Structure formats: structure tokens, C-alpha cells
């Protein structure tokens, strides 16, 4: 489990010509942590990883590994290994020789290399494929060879750049579990780049969300999803309904917010807020309930529940859930997802049907607009 700080990135910046790819980024990764970098395409994830591996030199800032600055150290002198997105297996070497490559360079004794390679073969479940060349392997097998090769040197830190990008969904799911398992067992710190948020959520202890070369939020998967730091993060991670409005008044732990096209919404007030301030309210689709009648009268009387009325405009059936598009009478459109707990569709709402959407104040997040 995560312990002391292994990697300390301090105000690192990287420019390509006039373009700032990584912009004064700071981050700490603990020993044994599984850290995921998430962000839209071109936000600088690969660039950051390449600086950690040593293929790019930061223009300013420090990268401390175990307290020593490695920003200017050449890649082959760093106790950091990288698993490449393209796998970069040596086509002229077989599986064993690929895995042994780094061990031979490190000057390890012959029998020691053989033991370590065998260990890595077992780890990557590559038994029987030792003599094959990379082009005689399936995508999933190549991916495991690349992982075994990167782990063979027992690095303190393993960098993975979209390692599962080329795998199909089933294989990806099982590989995710294997990776997590492996990481727990070896205690190596992993930094994984991905733009698949489910992948980041499933695997990582903490996730760093990047945009325009900066980290906009670093948090556990749950915090990231339930307590996004900004509207941008809320919209980037998962689906969300956003309503813009102004704070009307404060009632002990509650805020009453007048939203432009939904009417008043009561939300939990986690922070200092002034009446009249422009804000937006974010609610995840699965936090909303959908019914023909709405919640019990008593609950509404208590003022604890938001109740909005509208018409079903479309629906999407996704197997485990159904996603409804609702056009509110007040003008807004929103998405509500409902778990399909029964196999038959008697409870489904049809397009054009009148419905009531309701949700708890505690499920609303108030953010800057």
C-alpha cells in the first residue's frame, strides 16, 4: 500500500517551439501507488511520461526520484522503465531475448538472467512462447511480453503509455485485473496514461486529470466522480447534467439556486457562498429518479427533494441501464439513467410520456460556472 513519496515532480515545464506542452506541473506519487493520468488528446500526457523516462528534457522544474533530481539524467541511467504504446518489441529477437535484453545490458550473470526470464515468462503467462518472434504473437501476447520486458529490471517506477489501447474490450478487462494484481504483488509504482476513464477508475489508487499541460485535479476515483473540482472536470469524467443559475438564498445547510431553465433547485451547501453569485449545479444521471407520480408528498413538504416535471423525448437501451432524455417543462433537457433490474420492459417509459424527475439536495454539486 502507498507509503512514502517516490516521485516528486516540481513545476516541470516543456515547450515545443512556442507551444507549451506541459505547463508548470507539480505532482507527488507514492511508493507502491497506482497512478493514472487522464486527459483529452494532446493535453501533454505522453510528453510528461517521456520526461519521466528521460526521452525529453524539461525546460524548467525538477523531477525528484527518491529525493535525487533526475531531470537531466539519460534514460539508460534511470531506475525507471517504460512500456510503449506500440510495445516496441525488438522484431529480430524472440520472446526470451526480448525479456533478457535489459538484464544482459545490466551485466547480470547468465544463470541469474535465465532465472529472471523464467520468472517473467511465468508472470506474463507466456510459457511455450519463449522461442517465438514478436510477429508470431497475438496482440495480447505482445502486450504481455512488453510488460514482462519492462518489469524484468525490477524498476522502482513503471510508466505505461496507453498499454491497453490495442486490445479488445474483453481482453482489456482481464488485462486490467492482471495489471492491478501484478502491481499489488510487486509493489512497483505504476503511472499509467489512458484516455479511457473507466480504465483509470478501475485500476488507479489516484487519478490526475490533465488539460492544456496542467493538472486540474488529483483525487481518488470516487472523489473525482462525486466531488469534481470544476465544471470542466465534471463534464470530462462521466456523464453529467449541468444547470446554470444564481444563488437565491441560504437555508442552514442548503442553498436555493434559481436556475435559468429548471426553476429553483435546492442543493447541499459545502462552501461559503454569497447570495446572487452565479453558479452551476451538476447532477449525475444515475443520481436522479424517474417516475410517473414523483416522490411521496411528505418528502417534498420537508423541502428535501427537488422535483422537476417533463416529457420523455428519447431513450437509449444499453443493457445494464437505460438512458432517458427528458425535456423539462421549464425548458432544460437532461439525461437520466435507470438501472434495468427486471428483464421485461413493463416499467419502461415511452417517448412522449409525462414523467417526474426528482433528486436529493445532497446529490447536487455546486460549482463555479
Amino acid at each position: 500500500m502507498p507509503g512514502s513519496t517516490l516521485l516528486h515532480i516540481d513545476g516541470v515545464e516543456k515547450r515545443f517551439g512556442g507551444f507549451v506542452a506541459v505547463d508548470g506541473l507539480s505532482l507527488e506519487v507514492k511508493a507502491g501507488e497506482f497512478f493514472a493520468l487522464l486527459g483529452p488528446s494532446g493535453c501533454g500526457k505522453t510528453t510528461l511520461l517521456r520526461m519521466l523516462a528521460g526521452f525529453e528534457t524539461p525546460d524548467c522544474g525538477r523531477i525528484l526520484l527518491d529525493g535525487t533530481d533526475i531531470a537531466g539524467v539519460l534514460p539508460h541511467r534511470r531506475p525507471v522503465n517504460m512500456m510503449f504504446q506500440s510495445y516496441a518489441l525488438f522484431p529480430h529477437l524472440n520472446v526470451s531475448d526480448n525479456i533478457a535484453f535489459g538484464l544482459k545490458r545490466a551485466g547480470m550473470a547468465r544463470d541469474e538472467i535465465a532465472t529472471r526470464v523464467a520468472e517473467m515468462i511465468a508472470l506474463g503467462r507466456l510459457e511455450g512462447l519463449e522461442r517465438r518472434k514478436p510477429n508470431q504473437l497475438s496482440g495480447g501476447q505482445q502486450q504481455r511480453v512488453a510488460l514482462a520486458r519492462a518489469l524484468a529490471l525490477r524498476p522502482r517506477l513503471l510508466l505505461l503509455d496507453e498499454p491497453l489501447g490495442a486490445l479488445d474490450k474483453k481482453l482489456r478487462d482481464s488485462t486490467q485485473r492482471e495489471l492491478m494484481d501484478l502491481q499489488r504483488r510487486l509493489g512497483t509504482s505504476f503511472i499509467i496514461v489512458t484516455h479511457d476513464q473507466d480504465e483509470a477508475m478501475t485500476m488507479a489508487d489516484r487519478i490526475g486529470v490533465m488539460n492544456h499541460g496542467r493538472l486540474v485535479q488529483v483525487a481518488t476515483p470516487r472523489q473525482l466522480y462525486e466531488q469534481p473540482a470544476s465544471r470542466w472536470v465534471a463534464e470530462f469524467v462521466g456523464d453529467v447534467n449541468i444547470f446554470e443559475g444564481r444563488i437565491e438564498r441560504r437555508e442552514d445547510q442548503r442553498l436555493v439556486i434559481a436556475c435559468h431553465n429548471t426553476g429553483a433547485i435546492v442543493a447541499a451547501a459545502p462552501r461559503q457562498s454569497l447570495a446572487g453569485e452565479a453558479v452551476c449545479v451538476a447532477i449525475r444521471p444515475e443520481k436522479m429518479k424517474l417516475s410517473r407520480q414523483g416522490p411521496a408528498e411528505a418528502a417534498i413538504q420537508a423541502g428535501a427533494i427537488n422535483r422537476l416535471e417533463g416529457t420523455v423525448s428519447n431513450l437509449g437501451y444499453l443493457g445494464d441501464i437505460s438512458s432517458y432524455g427528458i425535456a423539462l417543462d421549464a425548458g432544460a433537457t437532461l439525461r437520466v439513467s435507470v438501472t434495468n433490474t427486471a428483464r421485461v420492459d413493463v416499467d419502461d417509459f415511452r417517448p412522449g410520456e409525462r414523467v417526474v424527475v426528482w433528486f436529493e439536495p445532497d446529490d447536487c454539486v455546486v460549482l463555479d460556472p
Partner: protein
Amino acid sequence: MAGRAQPGLSRFNVTALALGLGFLYLPIVILVIYSFNASRLVTVWGGWSLRWYVEFFNDQAMLAASWMSLRVAAASATAATVLGTLAAIALSRGARFKGRTLFSGMLYAPLVMPEVITGLSLLLLFVAINVERGFWTVTVAHTTLTMCFVTVVVQSRLNSLDRSLEEAAMDLGCSPVRAFLSASLPLIAPSIAAGWMLAFTLSLDDLVIASFTTGPGSATLPIRIYSEIRLGVKPEVNAICTLFIGLITLLIVSASLASKISSARGDNAARA
């Protein structure tokens, strides 16, 4: 209709191919056949014989010229391969510097330069620096001529290689030079071999530049043959030419095989 369904060649294609190949190879076939001619007269068929081959192996001047040509070809091809490969590496791996396009353009100039001009300018150079003309001057001249061919072959291969292979090697503990040697060199080796063979055949074949840059007493084979032919064609020349056609065919076939292997490895690299 049945003819349409055939995936093979249509009548037109067969005719076109026959005409084209006939035009290319008929003279060579005739030369090879006549090299086994027993008659002293080149144009009269006097039955099969190996007489002219025997004659060639007893002709000291011809043997010396052949030996000279082979030595020049081997030496210049080796030098051209080393220089050409280095140039290719510099051009495809070096940082982008100002005037890089101009440099790579200049490297390819000998490809399109008329040989007479190359030969003459080299001759002027050798005269100016006052070196004795012979084996070394021809070798240097041929290196100049063939280096750019090697560069073209090797550079195209290098550019298609996945750079992350070298990065992976560095990541696993290789210094940058070492990474190039262990990750990229094995993949471009076949095209370097192909470049060498190309340079070898080009050098063997060259008459113009060799005539300009060689000195008295060190004629290459093409020069020797050319001067013999001006006095009338001896059937012996046919025999020599046949031997060299055999050698060159062998080299060209192995060069194309090598580049096939090279690109096949590259495909694997791309898949891997």
C-alpha cells in the same frame, strides 16, 4: 468468356512482355551464345567450344584488367557503403538544422550528374593535387559515384523504422549509440548489404569515369574491352562479358533478396 475468367496474362500482355524482354535480352543472349562459338569470326557460327574461355585465362592483360576492376569495385563499394550509411544516419537521425534539405539534395546530385562531368571534374581535382593516377584515384572516383546510391537505399529503410525501438533499447539500459547498434542496425543490415552490392556492380560497370581518372598501365576491364573492340571484336570479349554478366546477375539477385528480407523484417517491426 473463359479467357476473361483466367487470372493469367491476356494475349496483348504476353506480346508486350515478349517484345520488351526480347528487346532487352536478345543482345545479351546472343553474346552469351557466341561466347561458346568455336569460330574465330565473331559472326560465323562454328559449333560449341570453350576455346575463348581458355584464351581469356591465358591473356595476361585481360586478366590484369579484370583483377583491377574487381579490386576497385570491392574497395570503392566498401568505402561507399561506410560513407553512405553514415550520411543516411546523419540525414534521418540528426537534429533538423538549417539547410538540411539543401544538404540531402546535394548528396543526391551525383545520381543525376552526367558521368562525363563527374569524370572530368575528378580528373581536374587529381591533376590539381598532383596525385599519381591509377588504382586509388579510380577507387576514390567510384566511391564518389556510388556513395549516394547507398545513402538512398539505407535512408529509405531507416526512415521507415519505428523510432520507439531505439527508445526502448535506451530505456532498458543502452546508451544512445549502443541502442542504435542493437535495435536499429540489425534491421537495416540487409539494406546496407544491398547498397554494397549495388555499389559493386555500378563500379564494375563504369567506363566513363574510370577512363577519366585512371592512369597508364592500370586499365579497368571496361576500358580494356572498349579499346580491344575498336580494333575489331575478338570472341574472347564475349567470354569475359559472359563471366561478368554471371557475376553481376548473382549480385543483383542477392541484392534484391536482401532488400526483400529487409522490408519483410521492417513489416514485422511495424506489426510488432
